[in-house]
């Protein structure tokens, strides 16, 4: 018999707030975290728009040896995880006494790789790179750092699946616990914010162009959308078996009930309708729910013309126009590898506090998707079930269904 999987802790470090309370307020108020990064103009970007987070200072909490192996994505993930562990009431000594795993989404370490290469080009001597570089320059940097810092002894790996990485990481954690292989896993997603990480993406000409109004630049589903705004940070959710959570008296925040996945098998960057629809259907089947049971859909919608339109059509195909739909990327920008995890945190905060965050900047949707029940201003609405979509390059799709916890 499969085990029930609950969320017992959440943590967030994002451009709309660096803790759960700040983020909850930003979501309700529809606050944008998008700014202009002047460095990107010098660097040759077409669009200098980005989400931005404060640079963490971990000197007081981590040793030099620990910090030297961490790039910014690991630092963000560390802070999000500390908050999540605190909410889950898991102290350092509790973690050491049990088997806890980590499955985290990350799909780039551009800054570390480029800075390391620059040193070798300059010095012509690999021995002058330093000891931290190798641990910062691997995609699994977040899981290797956090597993070491927190002394984890369970499953330990990074999930790389483009902009669906964070969502798949939670989906994988769900499966590990459901099947009884683990009782407690740190899941999440992290995303570096720096020009190196986004230059080649900017080069595709898919970033938003409204640089005079940064807070209006990300406008998923709106007719006047011009592209996405990159962003980043980290989000963590602590997944736990129901039995384990009850046994240690942990606060249960929500229950993960479905994980759907699929691959488009088509173009490397152009999304379709069938793939996302299949992932959403699979998530519903696994959750043993009907489309009408889902009250809210947190859309992947990144503010690109075709991506948003195709997702909207997929939602209409599976759900019709009934569920509320919004894309929190209108406020946060596209948090890429982190997005699938952060949007679970955002949506769970909404479910906990009885509101649906707005899809800001949505003035007029495309004509053929108007039937969707878009939320363009925050509404107070109690709800019990939501679905969160995440899609990525290469046609990877993930859909998670989360339910308010009920004995």
């Amino acid at each position: 018999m499969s085990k029930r999987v609950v969320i017992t802790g959440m943590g967030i470090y994002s451009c709309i707030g660096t803790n759960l309370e700040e983020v909850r307020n930003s979501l309700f108020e529809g606050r944008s975290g998008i700014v202009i990064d002047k460095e990107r103009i010098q660097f040759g970007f077409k669009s200098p728009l980005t989400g931005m987070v404060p640079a963490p200072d971990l000197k007081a909490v981590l040793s030099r040896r620990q910090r030297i192996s961490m790039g910014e994505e690991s630092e963000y993930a560390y802070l999000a995880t500390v908050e999540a562990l605190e909410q889950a009431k898991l102290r350092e000594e509790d973690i050491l006494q049990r088997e806890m795993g980590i499955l985290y989404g990350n799909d780039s370490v551009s800054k570390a790789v480029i800075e390391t290469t620059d040193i070798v080009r300059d010095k012509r001597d690999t021995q002058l790179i330093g000891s931290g570089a190798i641990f910062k320059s691997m995609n699994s940097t977040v899981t290797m750092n956090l597993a070491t810092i927190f002394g984890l002894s369970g499953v330990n790996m990074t999930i790389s699946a483009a902009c669906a990485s964070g969502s798949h990481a939670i989906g994988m954690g769900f499966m590990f616990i459901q099947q009884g292989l683990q009782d407690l896993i740190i899941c999440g997603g992290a995303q570096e914010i720096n020009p190196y990480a986004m230059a080649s993406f900017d080069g595709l000409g898919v970033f938003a162009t409204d640089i005079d109004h940064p807070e209006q630049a990300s406008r998923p589903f709106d007719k006047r959308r011009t592209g996405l705004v990159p962003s980043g940070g980290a989000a963590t959710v602590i997944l736990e078996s129901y039995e384990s959570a009850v046994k240690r008296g942990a606060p249960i925040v929500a229950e993960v009930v479905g994980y759907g996945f699929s691959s488009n098998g088509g173009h490397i960057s152009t999304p379709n309708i069938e793939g996302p629809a299949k992932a959403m259907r699979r998530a519903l089947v696994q959750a043993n729910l009907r489309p009408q049971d889902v009250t809210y859909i947190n859309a992947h919608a990144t503010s690109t013309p075709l991506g948003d339109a195709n997702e909207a059509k997929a939602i209409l195909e599976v759900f019709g126009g009934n569920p509320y739909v919004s894309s929190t990327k209108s406020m946060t920008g596209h948090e890429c590898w982190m997005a699938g995890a952060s949007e679970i945190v955002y949506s769970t905060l909404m479910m906990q506090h009885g509101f649906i965050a707005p899809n800001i900047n949505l003035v007029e949707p495309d004509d053929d998707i108007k039937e969707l029940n878009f939320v363009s201003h925050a509404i107070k609405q109690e709800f019990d079930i939501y679905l969160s979509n995440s899609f990525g390059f290469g046609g990877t799709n993930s859909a998670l269904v989360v339910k308010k916890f009920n004995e």
Partner: protein
Amino acid sequence: MNKVSIYQKINEILVDEFEVDEEVISPAASLKESLDLDSLDYVDLVVIIESNFGVKLVEADFAGMVTFQDFYDVVERKIAAKN
């Protein structure tokens, strides 16, 4: 660069970059034990000495190095040889 300024600079690096407690640094103290060095830290010592003094320590330099004084002497010798 004279002896004293080399010593001072090395101590400054150890305190600032390696977060070593200033009080544990003395010429006769054991370098490895005082700094709690592991194999990775030696890699960083090489980097930091090169970027501050323009000389590169190699594995053989660490072989007979026991005290802080040994460390100062090796760096001092390397700087002298360079000049």
